[in-house]
């Protein structure tokens, strides 16, 4: 045990994190997800070291080169190195995921727990708003938002966030409804805890695992929506090396030059698959009995 060398008591959150990671590594599918995610993060951090070329430099003498000849994945229609663009594109993908998650998670959790705990008038108002957002297909709604705000990466992130929170809110509300009548909530009320305190200290920790699982599974959709917006020209703008936008421009040359769309496509596939598998693994790992095992 690594704990033997440390002082006897590690912080509870560290123990939990270590247990979750150990649990995830035990199953091959979630281990795959974790590894791909680690590769993605490392690639984003060390992009300048990993890239063989500048992702923005055009070389019109060398357009549409096959993979090989100094270009690992070939070059695109402007002679830019596809491998280097993919490497830099991981930064954009991670930015989108990170920003969408930190916006969507708290909003969904707050709306869901407040609506579930208070019920009545709060529930009606908040859930009808959620219903309105849910009743549009998310890509169409994002399209409408981007069209209104103007096409750019930041607006795509805002649009995706606006469409991604309702399922989280629904989930958090459903979870809250199952805990609301539990004796430990009654006990907290009997100790004089305010509603804010009960939601923050008792209800949110109970909703967090399922919300985190849902967020992780949502990542795949977020990546696909971002790629879709990029593909439609409403997300990241050229010359940004966003994967969806790369497929969009490569589409015109697809028949004769397969590598233009294949490699960005594989990257999107791998990352969204990784998030799906990781989400599945997290569902098992976040069982409370697993969390605090020593």
């Amino acid at each position, binding site marked *: 045990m690594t704990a033997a060398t440390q002082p006897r008591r590690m912080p509870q959150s560290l123990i939990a994190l270590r247990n979750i990671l150990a649990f995830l590594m035990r199953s091959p599918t979630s281990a795959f997800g974790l590894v791909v995610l680690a590769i993605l993060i490392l690639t984003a951090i060390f992009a300048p070291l990993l890239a063989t070329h500048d992702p923005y430099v055009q070389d019109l003498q060398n357009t549409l080169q096959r993979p090989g000849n100094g270009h690992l994945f070939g070059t695109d229609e402007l002679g830019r190195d596809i491998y280097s663009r993919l490497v830099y594109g991981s930064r954009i993908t991670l930015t989108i995921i990170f920003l969408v998650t930190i916006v969507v998670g708290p909003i969904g959790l707050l709306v869901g727990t407040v609506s579930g705990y208070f019920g009545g008038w709060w529930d009606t108002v908040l859930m009808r708003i959620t219903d309105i957002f849910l009743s549009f297909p998310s890509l169409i709604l994002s399209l409408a938002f981007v069209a209104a705000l103007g096409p750019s990466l930041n607006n795509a992130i805002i649009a995706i966030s606006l469409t991604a929170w309702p399922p989280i809110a629904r989930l958090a509300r459903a979870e809250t409804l199952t805990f609301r009548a539990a004796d430990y909530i009654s006990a907290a009320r*009997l100790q004089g805890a305010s509603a804010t305190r009960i939601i923050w200290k008792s209800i949110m920790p109970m909703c967090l695992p399922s919300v985190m699982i849902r967020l992780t599974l949502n990542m795949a959709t977020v990546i696909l929506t971002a790629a879709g917006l990029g593909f439609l020209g409403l997300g990241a703008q050229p010359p940004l090396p966003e994967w969806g936008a790369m497929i969009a421009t490569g589409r015109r040359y697809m028949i004769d030059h397969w590598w233009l769309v294949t490699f960005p496509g594989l990257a999107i596939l791998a990352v969204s698959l990784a998030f799906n598998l990781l989400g599945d693994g997290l569902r098992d790992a976040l069982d409370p009995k697993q969390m605090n095992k020593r």
Partner: protein
Amino acid sequence: MKPVAIRDLCISFGAVQVLHDVTFDVASGESFGLVGESGSGKSTVLRCMSMLQAQWTGDVIIGSQSVREMPLNARVRTVQMVFQDPYGSLHPRHSVATVLSEPLRIHGLDRQRARMEQALIDVGLPVDFLERFPHQLSGGQRQRVAIARALILEPEVLLLDEPTSALDVSVQAEILNLLARLRSEKGFTYLMVSHDLSVVDHMCDRFAVMQAGRIVEVLDRAAIPSNAATQPYARDLIAASLAYERAV
């Protein structure tokens, strides 16, 4: 120690009236039992008294004040409750330390660590249990933690909602003895719900028999062995319990 008086307590859920004019008195420092079959409204009385249910009519007076008029902080420091199922009454992600320190933080009390340790000692648990989580405790230990949580605000009235019915028989005796010891040491007023007359016989000075949301009869503990009840339902209930005990 404070006396409790309940006057004309009525509550309805939708069209169904669950309690009908429930009226009884509990003397200061007394241990009072509420018995009756499932669904007779025993637990609802406790939930109304603790204001977990608020839409009742009538009056619940503790000491000289109605619970409705007590400020929240004063009320929760006067009345605390121990729930039936220790598996459901402890937050699965809160350690014992969190469970016990939350009420202290809410009320801004001093010497938190000392109070938490004292509460654990009072319920007969070792102090290092503070770091444990509910799934690391047995049922009896969980119920002791739940009792410690009720004690930590130093209430004067303790509402016990079938505190032993979810536990093993041998553990039941331990918890009942613990509750009896705490009452003799600290002098609480107990209001205990049970469907087990032998528990009431062991714990309570007097008890009320409830049926379909009404108090049928208030009896002394001494009435159990001789079945001195005057109302037919109370007689039947006690007779059934005595017959069951003889059979066991």
